[in-house]
């Protein structure tokens, strides 16, 4: 295997469906394939063989080369604390309300947990193909920058903000009176919040060396990865897709392809309407033809601007939810061959 296949794009465009379709196609081609996903629709989860919440890889009953796992970022974080902090500090961390606040609310936190899980399965070398349905991000290439962001956060950025300079010793931090700014903050927040957060930050910092080493390993995998961007032809997801072309080359290879989901047939744009067509049906085609034309303009502009391979997936009323129709979704696009050969 060369590296992971990372499926990115804005929320609601069908990333999970495309990830699953690629997974099924690769598994059917005989590759041991693992799909890592975040929050699949129920019917899609069932198709993948994830009837219950599994955050360890599970083989599909009808297609045993297809494996899937759901990413549970909360559980991943406890594991991250345990593998990088000394046992006593790890115990305090996983029970700390501040730890849960950071892991839940730090923007790149879910991305980091997913990247860590990806690296763990790549380390195991049990699969030929690993496909990551990247978690919803606060935008752009967050999935790729999360390891560095988090390492910086843990490594002292919080401390430096707190004290305005070097990373302090335990005693200096709590000598609140010595720093007027901290004194004001202490008054504003009352009670002993400053002290509690300070103690937490010391525990958090014990994960720094481990996290830094791990982040470098994850970034090495990113550089070997193949990214595909999924979008629809709507303005917001297209803008999001464009960001990957601008930002990704800083940290990994540029996207290998962009998948336009929910595409309408271009043949509708100039279709002739037979004379015996009823008014509602003629009007209906006219509406969808306008939409097809709008979509084509968007795709053409994108292709001209970013000179990338464009793959179109047709609009289907219901998302496919069995293995055959998932594979059929990308069968004719040639996407799999592009990615794996």
């Amino acid at each position, binding site marked *: 295997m060369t590296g992971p296949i990372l499926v990115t794009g804005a929320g609601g465009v069908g990333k999970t469906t495309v990830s699953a379709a690629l997974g099924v196609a690769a598994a059917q081609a005989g590759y041991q394939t693992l799909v890592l996903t975040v929050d699949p629709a129920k019917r899609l989860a069932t198709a993948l063989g994830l009837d219950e919440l599994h955050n360890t890889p599970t083989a599909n009953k009808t297609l045993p080369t297809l494996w899937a796992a759901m990413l549970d970022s909360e559980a991943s974080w406890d594991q991250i604390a345990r593998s990088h902090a000394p046992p006593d500090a790890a115990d305090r961390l996983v029970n700390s309300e501040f730890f*849960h606040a950071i892991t*839940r609310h730090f923007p790149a936190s879910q991305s980091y947990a997913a990247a860590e899980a990806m690296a763990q399965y790549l380390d195991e070398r049990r699969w030929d193909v690993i496909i990551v349905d990247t978690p919803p991000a606060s935008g752009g290439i967050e999935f790729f920058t999360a390891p560095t962001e988090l390492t910086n956060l843990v490594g002292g950025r919080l401390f430096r903000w707190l004290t305005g300079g070097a990373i302090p010793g335990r005693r200096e931090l709590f000598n609140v009176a010595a720093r007027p700014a*901290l004194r004001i903050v202490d008054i504003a927040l009352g009670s002993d*919040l400053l002290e509690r*957060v300070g103690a937490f930050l010391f525990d958090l910092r014990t994960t720094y060396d481990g996290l830094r080493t791990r982040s470098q390993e994850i970034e090495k995998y990113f550089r070997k990865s193949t990214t595909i961007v999924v979008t629809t032809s709507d303005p917001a997801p297209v803008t999001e897709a464009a960001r990957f072309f601008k930002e990704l080359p800083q940290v990994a290879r540029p996207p290998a392809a962009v998948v336009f989901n929910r595409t309408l047939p271009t043949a509708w744009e100039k279709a002739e309407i*037979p004379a015996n067509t009823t008014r509602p*049906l003629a009007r209906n085609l006219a509406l969808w033809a306008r*939409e097809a034309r709008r979509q084509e303009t968007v795709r053409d502009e994108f292709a001209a601007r970013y000179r990338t391979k464009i793959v179109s997936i047709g609009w289907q*009323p219901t998302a496919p939810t069995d293995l055959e129709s998932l594979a059929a979704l990308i069968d004719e696009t040639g996407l799999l061959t592009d990615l794996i050969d």
Partner: protein
Amino acid sequence: MHQQLLLVTGKGGVGKSAVSAALAIEAARRGQKVLAIGMVEKRGLAAHLGVESLSYDATEVRPGVFALGIERPAALDEYLRIVLRVPKLSRIGPVARAFDALASAAPGIRETVTMGKVLFETRTNNWDLVVADAPPSGAIGSHIRAPKTVAELVGAGKVREQTRWMEDLMGDRARTGLVMVTLAEELPTVETAETLKWISEEGLIGVAEVITNRILEPLGARIPTDLSTPIGAAAALHGGIFQEQQRWLAELPDRGRELPYLFGVTGPVEVAERIADELEQR
């Protein structure tokens, strides 16, 4: 909707920013003085209002519609000045930095600063209506719970004193309402139902309306048997999506206005204006 503050949320990709802009435009057409706020992700709202970006100071972006985007450093600065009663001209940098560091670890504080700005603006009574393009439904909980979380976290102090009026204003159903935007598809429907459930259980904010976006009208004809022609294929697609949409609409516990699918509409401003037209009529 009669509320003075509308917090607009929904799953990513459902058109939350477009509906926020449209609600503001529609109210301004009725002669109201409106403030539209981009709370976290501001580009969408800016685009739908036809401006490059949103500044922290409210600016009139079209007749009757003012807009601002919350920037955390500026919001924190303003928040600390109000909480600590620090005059405008004095230096607050080191305090803000230290506070920000604490805020990144302490649950609720950062969200209180963001929600604080929205609630401060509502409380000034400068505006007939404040429409906030709020974080998506996956992240809205930490914002709605923020004043409560902070009150539980810090036993006393000036920050805690500020949380009470925030909770009161947010919980006042006559003044504040949550607008949920959704699509008639599986994941948005499930997420909307889950959000409405905990919103009602926790009772921290009232729901003003659930707006479903991109709804198809009935085809108005039978689907032809020959699906190989564009007429047949387009009819089958329309009919199929319509059926699927009706199925998910029926699963919604609470339904307000439905907005139509906008065929062939390209620009974000046109989208917002067309939605405003629909809101006006329905």
